[in-house]
């Protein structure tokens, strides 16, 4: 095999007191890939990343970074990390935070390079506590990149940012990706996964429910939702072309389909008394639902 597994979860589960946050996940991330772990809040993304970082011990299975234990210094000096933080010490300057983190790594970027990559040039003497929300997030990103690691983990990198700051942060991440680095990010925004990643792994309720290129995943989530009251049975509609799921919701049926116009046409042809037609874009939640149900059915 030409590909080198940089990060690996092998049959990994994580149980907390009451919930199983991760259920028997197998995941292999190869050199040069930009992988987004996409899923709703509480799906187990952060738990999965924490195990890859050696912050959590798997209840079962094995997590490996560069073929070694994630806690080993050898894997840590090749890895940069951005976690969900409520803050870092307010009374240190931008350049001081970067200098400290750079010192942990054998071949760090220069201060100037790090500042430029994270778009913080000119702010190096400002205290962290005096930065705006977007600037703080960019410094968290800078701390992940300043060591010039081969692999970077970004846990929900743009949560809480406005649209402009989010796009600006994407630019910085792209700048880093362009250096040929491997990136693993978690997000609950499909848009973000699509903007950055070349592979999307969809996680819901602790399990991987889809793994593919952004266009493959978008095709699944590009479904539209039809609500209609009809005398047809769910089974009849499910058999129609393009329909991926049918759910009874009160008197109405909720249908997920990749070909909304054709589905509506088909339904009306067989039941011209159908009423209450609504067609909307299916959200990620619907897509997760559809994927989960398919998985159960399979």
């Amino acid at each position, binding site marked *: 095999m030409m590909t080198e597994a940089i990060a690996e979860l092998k049959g990994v589960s994580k149980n*907390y007191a009451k*919930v199983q*946050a991760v259920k028997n996940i197998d995941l292999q991330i190869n050199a040069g890939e930009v992988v987004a772990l996409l899923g709703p809040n*509480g799906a187990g993304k*952060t*738990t999965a990343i*924490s195990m890859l*970082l*050696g*912050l*959590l*011990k798997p209840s079962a299975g094995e997590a490996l970074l560069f073929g070694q234990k994630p806690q080993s*210094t*050898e894997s*840590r*000096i090749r*890895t940069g*990390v951005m*976690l*969900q*933080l*409520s*803050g*870092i*010490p*307010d*009374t*240190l300057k931008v350049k*001081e935070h970067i*200098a*400290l*983190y750079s*010192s*942990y*790594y*054998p*071949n760090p970027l220069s201060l100037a390079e790090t500042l430029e990559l994270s778009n913080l040039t000119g702010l190096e003497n400002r*205290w962290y506590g005096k930065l705006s929300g977007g600037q703080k997030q960019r410094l968290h990103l800078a*701390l992940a990149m300043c*060591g010039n690691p081969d692999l970077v*983990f970004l846990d929900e990198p743009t949560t809480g940012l406005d649209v402009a700051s989010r796009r600006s942060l994407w630019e910085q991440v792209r700048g880093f990706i362009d250096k040929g680095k491997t990136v693993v990010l978690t997000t609950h925004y499909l848009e973000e996964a699509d903007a950055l990643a070349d592979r999307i792994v969809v996680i819901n309720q602790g399990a991987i429910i889809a793994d593919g290129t952004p266009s493959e995943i978008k095709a699944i989530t590009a479904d539209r939702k039809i609500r209609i009251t009809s005398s047809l049975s769910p089974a009849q509609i499910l058999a129609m072309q393009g329909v991926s799921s049918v759910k009874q919701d009160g008197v109405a049926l909720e249908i997920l389909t990749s070909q909304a116009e054709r589905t509506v046409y088909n339904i009306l042809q067989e039941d011209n008394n159908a009423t209450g037609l609504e067609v909307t874009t299916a959200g990620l939640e619907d897509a997760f639902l559809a994927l989960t149900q398919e998985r159960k059915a399979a």
Partner: protein
Amino acid sequence: MNSGQVTQDKKRNIVNIYWLEAKYEFLKSLRLPVFALSTILFPTLFYMFFGLSFGQQDFGPVNSATYYFVSYGVFGVIGASLFGFGAGVAAERGQGWMRLKQASPMPPLAYFVAKLAMAAMFSTIIFLLLWLLGFLFGEVRLAALQLLSIWAIMVVGSLPFAAMGLAIGYAVGPNSAPAIVNLVYLPMAFASGLWIPIQALPEFLQKIAPFLAPYHLAQLAFSVINVDQGDSVLGHIIVLGIYTVLFLVIALILYKRDEGKTFG
């Protein structure tokens, strides 16, 4: 591949990591008024009010300004360690900063050594400030060796309080940590005879004092100027050692419990 990693690791300057970690820990704390002012100002003000402004009496071989220089000095260094570790660890744990550090290639010990170095620096500042005030306004005249001994006892002797702070830092949240530290710190200091000489305390407190760590640190420092209660020096060291180990174990247990608690 293996040899490549070894050379990579060699290129990290471990000494530099420890140095920067300690330097920034100190700068960070010095710039934080709530920490810098309260740890330095409280013992200084107490010493000025209670140790210097009442005129001079004799405390055995020394005057009262000298006696209180040692007792408020001990009070001050205990505060620097308790707050540095207690409030500091609780805050950094609460922010998620500590998890990020754990995931980084920082040598894990560097975090704690930096905090110890920071507390030692603040202890030294408190020591020098009190001595200067005592020298100028209270006729505190101590030989260089005595001063050095008292300083060394204060800095090394604050270890059990660093351990105590660490346990508190892992036990409670960032918002309650400073209050909890004060609740432990102030009564413990009072009952150990750091504010009012132990002989002047109510009898029941005099009986409690030997169970408290600050009492033993104060007695060690007092022994340099011969105003201690006359207990065995080794006994004081053993009690302080037991306190250190006990709270390190508690901190470790709380740290293990903390793992994985912050997310789901």
